[in-house]
C-alpha cells in the first residue's frame, strides 16, 4: 500500500461488507502532538472480541475465496513503521472503529495520496451507503457528507460519472484550501 488514501479505500470495504449504512472517515493532523490520525467508524454488524484479536493476523480472514487477509496487517505495518500503531474496537451489532496513528514528523509517514479520489469513488460505488469524510488540520476542519450531496441532487444518483468527478474536485479543492491556510498560519505564528 503506497499511501493513506489506498488504505482508506481498502479498510472502508470491510465496513461495506459488514453491512454499514454510515461510514465516517476522519483524518487529523496535529503538529502539537506530532500525530497523524486516521479513523474509520461504521455502524455495520461489528465483531466479537475474539474476532477483533485475530484481525492483525494475516492468516485470518472471513472470506472463503482465499486464506489470507492483509488489509488490517498492512495498515498496522504502515502505522508501526511510522512510529505509531493501530487500535480496533468493535461490538457485535454496534459497529466497528479502526484507528491508525502515525507520527507526523516520521520519515516513513506514508504520503496522503489521492484522498479526494478515494472518497468520491467510495461514495459513487456504494450509493446506498452514506459516507462522511472529515479532515482536521490544527483548528481548521472540512466535512464532506454524502447525505448533503444526496439532498442537493434529489433523484440524480451518486454513481453518475459526472457527479463522482465533481465530488472529487470539490473535496480536492477544499482540502487544498485548508492546507494553504494551515501553512500560512504556521508561517505567521
Amino acid at each position, binding site marked *: *500500500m503506497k499511501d493513506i488514501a*489506498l488504505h482508506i*479505500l*481498502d479498510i472502508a*470495504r470491510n465496513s461495506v*461488507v459488514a453491512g454499514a449504512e454510515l461510514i465516517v472517515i476522519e483524518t487529523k493532523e496535529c503538529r502539537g502532538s506530532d500525530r497523524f490520525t486516521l479513523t474509520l467508524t461504521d455502524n455495520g454488524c461489528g465483531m466479537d472480541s475474539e474476532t477483533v484479536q485475530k484481525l492483525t493476523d494475516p492468516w485470518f480472514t472471513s*472470506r*472463503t*475465496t*482465499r486464506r489470507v*487477509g*492483509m*488489509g488490517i496487517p*498492512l495498515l498496522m505495518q504502515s502505522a508501526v513503521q511510522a512510529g505509531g500503531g493501530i487500535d480496533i474496537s468493535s461490538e457485535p451489532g454496534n459497529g466497528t472503529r479502526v484507528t491508525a496513528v502515525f507520527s507526523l514528523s516520521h520519515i516513513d509517514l506514508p504520503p496522503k495520496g*489521492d484522498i479526494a*479520489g*478515494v472518497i468520491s*469513488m467510495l461514495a*459513487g*460505488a*456504494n450509493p446506498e451507503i452514506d459516507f462522511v469524510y472529515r479532515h482536521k488540520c490544527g483548528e481548521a476542519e472540512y466535512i464532506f457528507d454524502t447525505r*448533503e*450531496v444526496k439532498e*442537493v*441532487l*434529489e*433523484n*440524480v*444518483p451518486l*454513481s*453518475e*460519472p*459526472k*457527479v*463522482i*468527478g*465533481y465530488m472529487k*474536485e*470539490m473535496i480536492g*479543492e*477544499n482540502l*487544498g*484550501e485548508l492546507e*494553504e491556510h494551515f501553512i500560512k498560519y504556521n508561517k505567521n505564528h
Partner: protein
Amino acid sequence: MAKVKSLADLKKMKEQLQSSISLREKSEHPEGMVQVKVAMATCGIASGAKDVMEFFTGNLEKRNVEAIVTQTGCMGYCYAEPTVEVKLPGQDPVVYGFVDVKKADEIIEKYIKQGELVDGIIPVNYETIDNK
C-alpha cells in the same frame, strides 16, 4: 484565490444531469447495459485497481458507452490483480487479469465496443463473487 467548488454549484448542475439521465433511462434497461466490475480487495488496490476503476468510470462515459462500473471483492486471483470482470449484455462474464490503464483502454475499444476478445483473459469456470 479562485472560489472553491461547493454544494451550491452542484445544485446548478443538477438539472442538466437530470435531463441526460432521463434520456438514457428511456432508451435502455440496466440489464441491457455493459457491466464492469473492478476487483478491489487489498490485493487489487495494492496492484493499482484504483487507477483502473477511475479510468473505466471516466472513459466509458466520455466514449458514450452505457455501462455500470462497480467495485467487487477478491475472486482469488490475487497473482493476476488488478482483475476486471466485464459482462456484455446477454453474454457470459469474462475476467481479465493484469489490467492497467493501457489494457483497460484496449478492453473498452476492442471488447466492449466491438465484441472482440482481448489478450489476458483468466480462463476458468468462473462464478461471480456474490454467490460465495
